[in-house]
């Protein structure tokens, strides 16, 4: 039915056009789209589109179809193409539409052309006349459309036809036309630079155009021109600087602002141009220091667009002739990027670092912990960029660690890195890993480079390496080989063929057997078979029987190459004279200039062949290639590897005439200094890096030891951090200026989260040092504060706090007369514990109190000397029986919680074999001790260090103590207790500035409103003090209605708290690198405030 209507409509175009035509046009497309969305399967869609396309086909070929209908058809055709169906029969109609239609049809026609056709499409030639006509049109819109299509797709050969017209448009009164003309010329320059050589002066005019849009467009051309030859445009530096200054100064119309940043695209373009101009040119660079400085300064607003500009600016600063002041500012910018929690900025920070470490390796040191974290990032993009960065800082000292990391992440190990290898066995072993894991994904060069490394060394020097390789490969081949990648098999067979004779102890028959075995495997490709056979050709001497067998079995192979090789093998093994002649035992000299080809070349030239041109020259002329094809000298991989005994690296056989070509020089073997064992990668470190002229095993341990020494003086971090820091120190070793450089970075910007103020507790647990005694005064003052914490006294009441500061259980639990309400509360808590109710954990004093305390007050005096000075909790009785009584006390060390257990003998006799066993699922129990016997009426002390890696709300401890009162009669006494996370919280002392940096770098956050204590004059201060007392927090700063507080889990993950008074509540915002830590701290804060 609709077909009938359709036909009626097409037959009567004039009637309907003015009224219903347009509406119908859009309806057809809408119908199509709608019916597609209603379909359920791909198959249905295919059918529908097929029907649609045949309808279109019918319509376009109908002579009655009007241009207006054609326009609609074209839109539908574009839609079908976008869905991935072929509508190529409409291409010609698109061109026709552009040619014959009115302005509206033309617009669609041109669009269809630019979407359908590629630069090289032959139909484009048909468009040239239309474009020419439209360029000369008086209708500006037509001119615009023609220029737009020219700037997108235009046949290269036809450029001369339109060039004069486009050039004219550069002086058109309308800026939109000038702008499009400039971009069309830019396009011409990209596809055929020679064509627009003569109009450079006009570009210059465009650059000084009064319209910013035209000027900005001309920068595309300049960027390209300057990229190709910076020296020719140095005189424009001043102009570019002036433009940038004007942009920065807000001289452009506000239309060009983007999120209130003036013309960011223009700025970035200019910065790129400036960096190209100032590269390695001091005087030019000096012209731009000022404006770069201003750029860095202006880009302050916290928006992506300013970061985009900053990034470009930093790159420019590091590209041009260096200026210390700017470098410093740029480095700070990079810091902001790297530490940013926004992942996109982090990525750019890493990218900038990757760029910058080539100039200044120290910068990586400052961010090493961030880099380490990024290595384990869940986003592969970040990981990859980090690896790229590591690759840039590879040197002789950190190569083992870096390559290991790279292998972890899948094998993208540029061989170059391995030239720093510290010793032979590591090198070969790593290469084995690389080949077997990375396998055929490796770039083709990598196996070749590796083999070249093996082959190039002097025989006596590198025989050890080769020997090691042979041994290692024989071992590999004896195992399972079917899973090994082809390129690894090829490498192995080449090495065995070349160097198996070095290993005296190996039976050659064994080698031949292993290789032959490979030939029998189905998974081995024919190319690899060729490698294996050529290896076999080199080995045999005297093993004629095996070889003949082999040749016999292969002579019936279907592969002609193999058959031929088998033949050669047979002949060689039978004719020893021929063999000696073909396979020279000692390596032959390589004629790197390829002079032996001279005769051939001159002959060819005389016969009319074209002289050799390097590939890059050839490419340019490709389009005009009217001459006969010149001689080429193809060399295939397999043919080369069969006969080239010296090296399979494919010396590219190019004519000696090319001589000076830069690419060639890397391939010349003669006189090439081996990169193997080259000094460290970075110029700065050359002075300090140990000389590594010869790969020797000594280097690595030395550097590691050095690294270890540097770590040592630092406080012990938790194991996780320790791992990371160890990794950091091994990754970044050798980047510093002097050997004394602290691995944790320079003082300017150390990774904040790991910075600690030196505190006496951390230095060591041993006593008796002079430092210790001098520190003890400061510690005792801290002790006081700490005991405030545990007594939960607000600071406003110092008088009463003294009474609780004697660490006896009496004062808090037994002394019921105490007037202090906190003490009452404490008692209340303890009572509830005694009643067996739910644990109330308000303060760290939560060890369960099963029996009324009966412990003497002087137990703390029994603490070992080195522990005495630590802040500690009250002593609580754990358990007791007629002969023994146990009490415990918690000591708060920075990196652990020490649980001290006092075991008192209540009897008059000696108790023997007293052993305490302590278990806890959630914690790491580090140390404990056992005593043999306990004298009558005496007390012994044992202590356990408890570490908490992951926070838990409550941790229950269980233990037993076993003892013998009479020989052979063992008593056991169980005890248990509970600890809270609060016992493991330590204050983190940081400055406000460090806090700020750290805040930005942390990822996990939790927000919650808490109760605000309003009973005192300053609610915020009171609340924070209460929290500080309940949990060991460090109040960093209080500014107005906001307060910042910091703590950490032992010496591990930090947690930052940001508190703001929000009406009657305290808005608490917590951040930590540990996902769960904020929740636990929040929980304890809530509890603390609820019980206040």
């Amino acid at each position, binding site marked *: 039915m609709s077909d009938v209507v359709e036909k009626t409509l097409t037959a009567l175009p004039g009637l309907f056009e003015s009224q219903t035509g*347009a509406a119908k046009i859009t309806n057809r497309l809408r119908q199509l789209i709608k019916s597609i969305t209603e379909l359920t399967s791909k198959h249905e869609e295919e059918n529908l589109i097929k029907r649609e396309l045949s309808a279109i086909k019918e319509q376009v070929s109908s002579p009655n179809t009007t241009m207006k209908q054609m326009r609609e058809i074209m839109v539908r055709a574009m839609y079908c193409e976008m869905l991935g169906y072929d509508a190529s029969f409409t291409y010609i109609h698109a061109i026709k539409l552009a040619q014959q239609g009115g302005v509206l049809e033309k617009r669609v026609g041109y669009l269809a052309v630019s979407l359908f056709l590629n630069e090289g499409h032959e139909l484009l030639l048909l468009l040239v006349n239309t474009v020419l006509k439209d360029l000369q049109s008086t209708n500006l819109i037509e001119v615009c459309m023609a220029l737009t299509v020219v700037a997108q797709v235009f046949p290269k050969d036809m450029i001369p036809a339109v060039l004069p017209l486009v050039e004219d448009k550069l002086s058109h009164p309308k800026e939109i036309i000038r702008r499009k003309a400039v971009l069309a010329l830019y396009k011409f320059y990209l596809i055929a630079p020679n064509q627009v050589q003569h109009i450079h002066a006009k570009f210059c005019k465009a650059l000084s155009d009064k319209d910013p849009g035209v000027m900005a467009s001309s920068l595309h051309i300049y960027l390209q021109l300057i990229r190709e030859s910076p020296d020719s445009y140095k005189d424009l530096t001043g102009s570019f600087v002036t433009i940038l200054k004007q942009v920065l100064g807000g001289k452009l119309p506000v239309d060009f602002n983007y999120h209130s940043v003036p013309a960011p695209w223009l700025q970035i373009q200019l910065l790129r141009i400036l960096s190209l101009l100032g590269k390695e040119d001091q005087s030019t660079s000096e012209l731009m220091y000022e404006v770069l400085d201003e750029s860095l300064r202006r880009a302050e607003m916290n928006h992506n667009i300013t970061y985009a500009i900053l990034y470009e600016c930093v790159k420019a600063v590091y590209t041009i002739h260096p200026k210390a002041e700017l470098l410093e500012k740029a480095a700070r910018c990079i810091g902001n990027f790297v530490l940013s929690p926004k992942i996109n900025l982090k990525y750019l920070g890493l990218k900038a670092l990757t760029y910058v470490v080539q100039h200044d390796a120290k910068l990586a040191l400052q961010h090493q912990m961030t880099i380490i974290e990024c290595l384990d990032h869940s986003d592969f993009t970040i990981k990859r960029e980090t690896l790229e960065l590591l690759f840039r800082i590879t040197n002789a000292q950190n190569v083992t660690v870096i390559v290991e990391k790279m292998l972890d992440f899948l094998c993208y190990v540029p061989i170059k890195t391995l030239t720093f290898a510290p010793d032979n066995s590591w090198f070969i072993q790593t290469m084995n890993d690389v080949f077997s894991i990375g396998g055929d994904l490796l770039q083709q060069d990598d196996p070749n480079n590796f083999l070249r490394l093996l082959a190039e060394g002097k025989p006596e020097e590198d025989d050890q390496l080769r020997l090691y390789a042979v041994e290692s490969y024989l071992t590999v081949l004896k195992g399972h080989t079917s899973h090994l990648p082809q390129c690894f098999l090829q490498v192995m067979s080449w090495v065995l063929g070349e160097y198996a004779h070095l290993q005296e102890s190996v039976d050659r028959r064994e080698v031949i057997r292993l290789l032959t075995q490979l030939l029998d495997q189905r998974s081995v490709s024919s190319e690899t078979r060729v490698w294996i056979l050529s290896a076999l050709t080199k080995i045999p001497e005297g093993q004629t029987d095996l070889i003949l067998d082999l040749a016999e079995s292969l002579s019936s192979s279907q592969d002609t190459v193999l058959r031929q090789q088998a033949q050669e093998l047979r002949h060689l093994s039978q004719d020893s004279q021929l063999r000696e002649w073909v396979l020279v035992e000692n390596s032959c000299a390589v004629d790197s200039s390829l002079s032996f080809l001279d005769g051939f070349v001159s002959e060819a030239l005389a016969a009319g062949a074209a002289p050799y041109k390097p590939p890059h020259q050839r490419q340019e002329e490709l389009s005009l290639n009217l001459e006969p094809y010149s001689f080429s000298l193809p060399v295939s991989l397999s043919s080369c590897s069969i006969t080239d005994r010296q090296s399979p690296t494919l010396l590219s056989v190019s004519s000696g005439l090319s001589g000076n070509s830069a690419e060639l020089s890397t391939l010349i073997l003669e006189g090439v200094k081996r990169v193997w064992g080259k000094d460290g990668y970075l110029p700065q470190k050359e002075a300090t890096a140990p000389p590594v002229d010869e790969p020797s095993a000594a280097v690595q341990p030395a550097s590691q030891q050095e690294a270890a020494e540097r770590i040592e003086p630092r406080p012990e971090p938790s194991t996780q951090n320790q791992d990371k820091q160890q990794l950091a120190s091994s990754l970044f070793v050798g980047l510093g200026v002097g050997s004394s450089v602290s691995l944790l970075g320079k003082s300017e910007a150390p990774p904040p989260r790991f910075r600690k103020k030196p505190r006496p507790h951390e230095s060591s647990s041993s006593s008796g040092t002079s430092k210790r005694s001098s520190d003890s005064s400061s510690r005792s003052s801290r002790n006081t504060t700490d005991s405030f914490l545990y007594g939960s006294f607000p600071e406003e009441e110092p008088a009463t706090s003294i009474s609780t500061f004697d660490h006896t259980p009496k004062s808090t639990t037994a002394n019921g007369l105490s007037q202090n309400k906190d003490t009452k509360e404490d008692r209340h808590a303890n009572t509830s514990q005694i009643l067996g109710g739910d644990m109330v954990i308000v303060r760290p004093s939560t060890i369960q109190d099963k029996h009324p305390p009966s412990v003497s007050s002087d137990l703390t005096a029994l603490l070992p000397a080195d522990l005495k000075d630590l802040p500690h909790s009250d002593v609580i009785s754990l358990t007791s029986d007629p002969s023994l009584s146990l009490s415990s006390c918690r000591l708060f060390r920075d990196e652990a919680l020490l649980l001290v257990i006092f075991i008192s003998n209540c009897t008059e006799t000696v108790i023997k074999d007293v052993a305490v066993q302590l278990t806890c699922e959630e914690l790491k129990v580090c140390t404990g001790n056992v005593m043999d016997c306990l004298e009558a009426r005496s007390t012994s002390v044992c202590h356990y260090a408890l570490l908490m890696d992951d926070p838990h709300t409550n941790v229950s401890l269980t233990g037993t103590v076993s003892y013998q009162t009479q020989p052979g009669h063992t008593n056991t006494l169980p005890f248990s207790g509970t600890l809270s996370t609060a016992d493991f919280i330590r204050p983190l002392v940081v400055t406000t500035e460090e806090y700020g940096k750290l805040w930005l770098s942390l990822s996990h956050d939790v927000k919650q409103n808490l109760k605000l204590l309003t009973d005192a004059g300053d609610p915020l201060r009171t609340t924070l003090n209460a929290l500080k007392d309940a949990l060991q927090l460090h109040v960093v700063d209080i500014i107005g209605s906001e307060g910042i507080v910091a703590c950490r889990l032992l010496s591990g993950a930090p947690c930052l708290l940001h508190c703001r008074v929000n009406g009657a509540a305290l808005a608490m915002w917590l951040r930590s690198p540990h996902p769960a830590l904020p929740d636990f701290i929040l929980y304890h804060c809530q509890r603390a405030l609820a019980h206040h």
Partner: protein
Amino acid sequence: MQFMLLFSRQGKLRLQKWYVPLSDKEKKKITRELVQTVLARKPKMCSFLEWRDLKIVYKRYASLYFCCAIEDQDNELITLEIIHRYVELLDKYFGSVCELDIIFNFEKAYFILDEFLLGGEAQETSKKNVLKAIEQADLLQEVSTQSVTSEHLCKCIATPQ
């Protein structure tokens, strides 16, 4: 810029603009691969990815992914802002743009893109100027084609893709 692709969360291509000459087969392959890769990424991941020797910069706006391919030395962040500016332009033109506007008026979306980027480079970054150019060309268009009845769109929204 090498190319720009717009595709939906379901992986349906909505717009494609190629600034480098490639064969249809290659285009299809690239599109398929990229759509898969980008859709597989989690929302919190960074907007850039290395793909072959190119950098892909993508951003999701509601149900639509905007995806650009740039060279390594190009600035990723500014590309993100190019995408954003394009969205702003579409938004201004269509009046709070949605995916359906782009589906049903994809040729308009192309026209706007061509005024904004030409040959893969930013041509005109002033929002006002771009829209002015489009409006001038549109003036010649009949009134009836422009009016998009919201009824139609609503029906389409109801049908799941």
